[in-house]
């Protein structure tokens, strides 16, 4: 019986092991812009200009050119979902934190959720309402 097992042919399939250290190359942020006074509106282009000027202020022209995308933008609530490459997440977040004003009016960015997966932004357990 042992000899029969030894003479069995080797399996035809070969196995390959792939290790992902960081599964996602982009990070997604859900942010909201809050102004001190009411009644200030921005359209999508002005919003992106504001983000890029915040990056340029703190980190210069090199990091203002980071591939940053606004995936969705709501003008009424001034909230947006941003996408940035993973290496630039820390820089974007810190420049949003230090942004103080837009055209002389005081404002602040509130970061609601950050995740390397876009699907995770669809449900937020912090805003969950239990019956």
């Amino acid at each position, binding site marked *: 019986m042992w000899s029969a097992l030894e003479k069995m042919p080797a399996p035809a399939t070969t196995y390959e092991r792939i290790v992902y250290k960081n599964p996602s190359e982009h990070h997604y942020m859900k942010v909201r812009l809050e102004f001190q006074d009411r009644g200030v509106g921005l359209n999508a282009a002005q919003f992106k200009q504001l983000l890029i000027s915040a*990056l*340029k*202020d*703190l*980190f*210069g*022209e*090199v*990091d203002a050119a980071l591939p940053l995308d606004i995936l969705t933008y709501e003008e009424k609530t001034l909230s947006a979902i941003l996408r940035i490459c993973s290496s630039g997440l820390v820089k974007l977040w810190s420049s949003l934190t230090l942004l103080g004003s837009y055209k002389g009016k005081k404002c602040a960015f509130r970061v609601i959720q950050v995740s390397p997966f876009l699907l995770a932004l669809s449900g937020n357990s912090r805003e969950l309402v239990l019956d």
Partner: protein
Amino acid sequence: MVRFKHRYLLCEVVSDDPRCRLSLEDRVLGGLIRDTIARVHGTFGAASCSIGFAVRYLNAYTGIVLLRCRKEFYQLVCSALPFITYLENKGHRYPCFLNTLHVGGTIRTCQKFLIRYNRRQLLILLQNCTDEAEREAIQKSVTRSCLLEERSDEEELSDNGGEEEAAEAME
């Protein structure tokens, strides 16, 4: 051991205009580099690079500049140098660029590299020179520098630099 580690960047100012090198001043150049870092890397870059930043050596005849910066942030300084396109002095603007020759951990390694580099440059000058009087002067400098090399291991930068200066100034 606990000490602040630095990186010394050896650069050469290359320009078409011969007046550009003569108008080099350490404070003007230092200010220009700081402004460029602030433009390229923002307030973060300007603050982090300007702590240990200094122009340590400047040679107006050969256009060699030795910059010092902290080891943690020397890459920010290195990457900002190609963005320098002009040198401004007393209202005159000269287009130029900075060529990084060597990055060393101490002034001594940069000095050793500079001596070898200057010797090689003398030989290149010898090949390219057209005038007979210049050719003789450069040949004298080359033989003098070879003698100095055989005579001693440690050479003063001012010693060799003097001959190189004279040779380059004559060109």
